[in-house]
Each structure stands twice: as C-alpha cells, then as structure tokens.
C-alpha cells in the first residue's frame, strides 16, 4: 500500500507499540509491585513519546495523522495516563490488603489498563475514520472489563449496562462511519484515501450534503454515547461508581474526551459543507441539556463517586456547548475546559478513591469530618472540588469565564440558561463539600498510604493555568481553535 511509504517507522507508532508490548508482559508478571512499576514505566515511555511530538515534523498518511489538535490531546492523555498509573500503584496496594483485588485480577487489570491507553492513542492518531472507530471500540471494551473487576452484583450490573449501551453506541457510530465513507467515495474515489479525514476536510464542500447530514446524526448518537451527553448518558454514573477508582479517573478524564474528539473531527468535515445540517446548533442544545440535567441530578446523589460522575456529564455538556457556539474564543474556551476538566476531575477521583478506602464506604451521608481525620487528603479534595465548581483562581474558572463572555454576545438567552446550570452545580458541589469535610467524624477511619504527588501535580497545573497560561499554550490553543472553525 502506498500510504505506508509516507509514514515509515516513526516515533508516532511508538504510541501504539509501547502499550501493545506492555500488555503481554503485564499479563504474566505475578509480583504486584513489579507489575505496577512496569505499568508506570510503560506509561512514562508513552508520555515521553507524546512530549516529543511537538518538536517533530507533522506527518500524515492515509492511516495516521499528527496535527496540532491531536498532539495536544495526546500529551494530555498520556500525561493523565501516567499520573493515574502512579496513583494506581498505591491504590491497588490497599485493595490487595483488604482482599477486594486478588493478584490474578491484578495482572488482568494492568494489561487492560495498557490496552485502554493504547486504544485511546490509536483513536487519537488515526487519520482513517475507520481506524479511529476501532480505537474507540477497543478502549470501550477494555474499560468494560475493568469496570467489572470487583465482581460485586453492582459492578456486574454496571459493566453489563456499559457493555450493552456502549456497543449500541459504537455500532451506530460505525454505521455513520460507513455512510461518511460512501459520501467521500463519490468524490475521492474508493479505497483507503476515501476514509482519510484530512482529504474529507479538503473536499468537504463537494460532498453530498444530505447523506453527510444523515451520517453525522449516526455519529452524533454513537460517539455522543461515549461522551456521556444526555440523553445517552445512562451507562456513565454506574460505570464510574462501581469500578476501581483509577478507572473512574481515566474514564472521566480521558475516554470522554476521546469520544468528543471523534465527534469534533467529524464536525470539521460537516461544517465545511454549506448544504449540510448546522452542527453547532445541535451541539449547543445537547450541551445545555446535559449541563442542566446533570446539575439538577447532582442534588439527589448519595454515592460520592456517582456525584462526580454526574459532574463529568455536566462538564462534558459545558465543553460541547463551547464547541457548539464556535468561533475562536469559544473554541479556545472549549479546548481549555477539556484539559482543565481532565486534570481536575482525575485529581478529584484520586482523592475520592483514598477517601472511600479510608472510610470504607462511598456513601456521602456516612462520610464527614475529613478535615480532622485526614487533613492532607481533605485539602487536596477540597481544592479539587473548589476548582471543578468553577471558583477562581483555578483554570476551570478561566475557561468558563471565557466561554460565558464569548457566548453572551451571540446567544444571550441561551447563555442565561447555561449560567443557571453552572450555578446550580456550583451550589450542590459546595454544599456536599461542606458536609464531607466538616462536622464530627463518623464511622470508621483508617489510615491510607495515599499518594499525594499525582493529586497535587494536577491541582498545581490547574492553578497555574488559571493564573497564567504560558504563551506557547495560548498560541497552540489559538491554532487549534481556528482549525475547529
């Protein structure tokens, strides 16, 4: 195939090779300390490759592409993947002690972790829209297995629901992908090049608008399920609350982003065609619906991990709204929000995981007085919640502020609704935070060997982004925002 000539063995492929090589190794290593260390090592290597990408020439082939958009997400994904692997090492130590995980399960857990990260990298670097689909599918199946790790009735229910809904979503996304190919094949001729995303964008205005619009509807429902947009979100809270907490962190921080990334790639194609449906309007509606729905659902949550799962739906709604509004400023805010949410939400899950271990429960009502019993953990948790609620000086405040100020000029009424949703979510989160931190400590309270480094690194990054965004990053986001139209 000629396209391989355009892409000889480049470092890009290491993003796939490293996780792929780690899977069999981790599957056989019995010692859990060693396998956790190897897991960290594999993640660190992948991160190093991703960090080198900005300094390498951009490449494109019919199968893979590296451009500014995916470099930013690759760095984010591999970074959070790396910090989560560090966190996971201390988390699983405790789970082994309490007997919730067995060494055999752990081998499986580590291989699946690498499978998921590798699949997400595949989805991110794919130029071929079919390959992108394969990446999302494999990542989904790997996380299904991980959500079911604990084998409690709840975990099995959650994994089964995730499996069924995820499969349906992914099936519809594939149908959309085939339709897109049909549309592109009429213009580009058949074969591999008709599935190349960049060629579709270049020829977007010549594509058949009606079939393209239909294709986008399927892609929206399909990948929208992965993003967790209401009303396709039903799998998300269960999957987040029943699996091991490192998985909740990567699900929220990374997999949802990958789904949105896929959707945005197709948005660029459809937006390039004047006759096709107005994608922006659809994204605005879905974003606002998700935000409002999740904000009000936050009230009735009794499980701490479910609380933050709904908060993820809320933030994916905010990001989707931002990209729906479009334009340089709103897109910039959307990109910033995507990265801030990833960092903050995974930090929160790091803290929540240890809190649940310390108190032996995930029920909000049974946790209180953390500031007395676990001051350091409580501090990290409080900072994370304050950041995700959108208080200054954290980065989430920055992105939400930018978004509201750019949207209010174009959609004043909708922005009012949007701000209402933000405020409701803000109120609930602070209310819950108060209950968890203060008051007399109740229930059991064990000491945990918590790993604070990943937690505070994320928080410091979010803080820095809120105070001062480096010019390089600003320039980078501007470039990507322009690309998103």
């Amino acid at each position, binding site marked *: 195939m000629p396209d391989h000539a355009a892409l000889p063995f480049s470092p890009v492929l290491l993003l796939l090779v490293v996780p792929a090589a780690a899977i069999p190794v981790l599957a056989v290593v019995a010692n859990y300390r060693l396998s956790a260390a190897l897991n960290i090592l594999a993640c660190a290597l992948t991160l190093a490759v991703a960090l080198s990408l900005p300094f390498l020439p951009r490449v494109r082939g019919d199968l893979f592409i590296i451009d500014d958009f995916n470099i930013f997400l690759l760095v984010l994904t591999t970074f959070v993947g790396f910090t989560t692997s560090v966190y996971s090492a201390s988390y699983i130590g405790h789970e082994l002690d309490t007997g919730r995980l067995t060494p055999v399960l752990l081998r499986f857990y580590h291989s699946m972790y690498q499978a998921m990260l590798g699949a997400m990298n595949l989805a991110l670097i794919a130029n*071929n829209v*079919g390959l992108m689909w*394969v990446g999302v599918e494999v990542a989904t199946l790997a996380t299904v297995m991980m959500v079911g790790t604990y084998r409690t*009735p709840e975990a*099995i229910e959650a994994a089964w629901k995730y499996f069924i809904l995820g499969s349906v979503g992914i099936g519809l996304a594939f149908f959309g992908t085939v339709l897109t190919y*049909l549309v592109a094949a009429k213009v580009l001729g058949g074969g591999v090049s008709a599935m190349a995303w960049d060629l579709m964008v270049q020829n977007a205005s010549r594509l058949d608008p009606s079939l393209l619009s239909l294709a986008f509807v399927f892609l929206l429902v399909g990948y929208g399920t992965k993003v967790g947009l209401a009303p396709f979100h039903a799998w998300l809270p269960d999957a987040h609350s029943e699996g091991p907490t490192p998985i909740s962190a990567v699900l929220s921080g990374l997999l949802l982003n990958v789904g949105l990334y896929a959707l945005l790639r197709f948005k660029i194609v459809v937006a390039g065609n004047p006759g096709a449906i107005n994608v922006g309007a659809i994204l605005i509606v879905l974003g606002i619906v998700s935000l409002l729905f999740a904000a009000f659902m936050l009230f009735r949550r009794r499980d701490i991990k479910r609380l933050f799962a709904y908060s993820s739906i809320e933030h994916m709604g905010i990001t989707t709204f931002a990209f729906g509004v479009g334009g340089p400023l709103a897109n910039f805010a959307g990109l910033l929000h995507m990265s801030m949410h990833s960092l903050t939400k995974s930090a929160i899950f790091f803290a929540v995981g240890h809190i649940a271990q310390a108190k032996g429960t995930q029920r909000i009502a049974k946790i209180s007085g953390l500031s007395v019993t676990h001051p350091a953990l409580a501090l990290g948790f409080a900072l994370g919640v304050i950041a995700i609620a959108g208080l200054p000086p954290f980065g989430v405040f920055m992105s939400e502020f930018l978004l509201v100020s750019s949207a209010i000029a174009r959609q004043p009424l909708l922005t009012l609704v949007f701000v209402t949703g933000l405020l409701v979510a803000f109120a609930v989160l602070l209310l819950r935070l108060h209950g968890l931190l203060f008051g007399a400590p109740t229930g059991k309270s064990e000491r945990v060997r918590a790993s604070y480094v990943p937690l505070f690194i994320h928080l410091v990054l979010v803080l820095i982004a809120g105070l001062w965004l480096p010019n390089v990053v600003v320039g980078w986001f501007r470039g990507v925002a322009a690309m998103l139209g």
Partner: protein
Amino acid sequence: MPSLWFDIAHLFAGGVLVLSLVLLYQDRVTAAINVFALQAITLALSVGWQAFIQSEPLLLVTALLALTVKGFVIPTALHRIVRRLDIHREVEQVIGGGATMLAGLALVALSILLLQPVGGGGDVVSHEDIAFALGVVLLGLLMMITRHNAVTQVIGFMSLENGLILAATGARGMPLVVEISVAFSVLIAFIVFGVFVFRIRERFDTVDVTVLERFRGERRDQA
C-alpha cells in the same frame, strides 16, 4: 451489470434483513442461535457475491471471516454456553410478539424511506444494501430492547453487527483493514460477553437481566 446480478445481490441482502425479522419472534434461545447462524451464512453469501460483482477478491476474506466466525464459531460457542448455563430448554416470554413485529416492519420502512431519497445517482446496489443494512441494525436494536435474557440480548447485538458488515461491504471499495478490525472487535466483544454471562449467572443465579436492575445504581441505598 446484468440485471440478474443485481437481483441476486438484492436477494442475499434482503435475506439477511428477513432473517432479522425472523429473529425477533424466536422464543427459544437455541432457535434464536440457529437463526443467527443462518443470518451470518446468508451474510457471507451476500458479501461473497459482492466480491464477485465488484471484482474485489479481497472481499472474499470478509466473507470467509463472516462464514467461519459468525456462521460457525460463535453459534457453536453460544450453544455450549447455553448448555452449560442449562437454559437451552427455557422458553423466553417475548413481550408482545405481534407489536414487536409491527414495530420491526415500521423500522424497515423507516430505513428505506430514510435512505432512498438521499444522494440519488450513485450505484443502485450499494444504495439498496445500505438501506437494508440500516434495517438490520435497527432490528438488532429492537431485539436488544425487547429481550430480558442476556444471551438473546447479545444475539441481538451480533445481528446488529451483521448489519454493519452488510453496510461496510455494500460500500464499494471499503478498505479491508476496517472490515477485518470489525470482525476482530466482534470477537473480542463476544469474549467479553462470554466472561460476563457466567459472572451474571454466578452472582444472580439467572441470566435474566431484569434481576440486575435491582442492583442498579443507588437503589440499594434505599434499602
């Protein structure tokens, strides 16, 4: 292309769709597995025929994969699972068989109406195939919704995937790498299912997924 060639393509693709409808009202798990196997074989014939009329020998690989994996390997494995779970004699209550069939017919009509008008011209075979494929996909969805048994739910899902393969092969010149990865991911999905169906059985003593609902989310908190 002689019109007979087109008619044969039509026959096979239509056959896949009709078998999807047949699948809807199967109330025995073993019968559902057999119908699914038959659908996969018809799909393989359809793909093989496409390989011939599109003169794309590579499509034969897809056809062969569909035939072996979905026509034989998965149904055999399903039969074994069902026997090990001891539900091969069970009769599942199909809720409102008549209503489901009507809904199924409506979905087929919908998919044809949806895809007929768009992008006229092009080639007729792929157009028909895509419309049929959408019908198969939607019927698979319908089956997943109306069933309570984990095994029949997954059969619904696998028949949905048959629709995806039909769509992929109907699209002329679709790269082989994509089709192979679809087949591959179906296999992984099947393994995932195989793992979970036994876990469900182990925890709940049944594969009726309505029992799982009791453990949904926060419901246990109220107890």
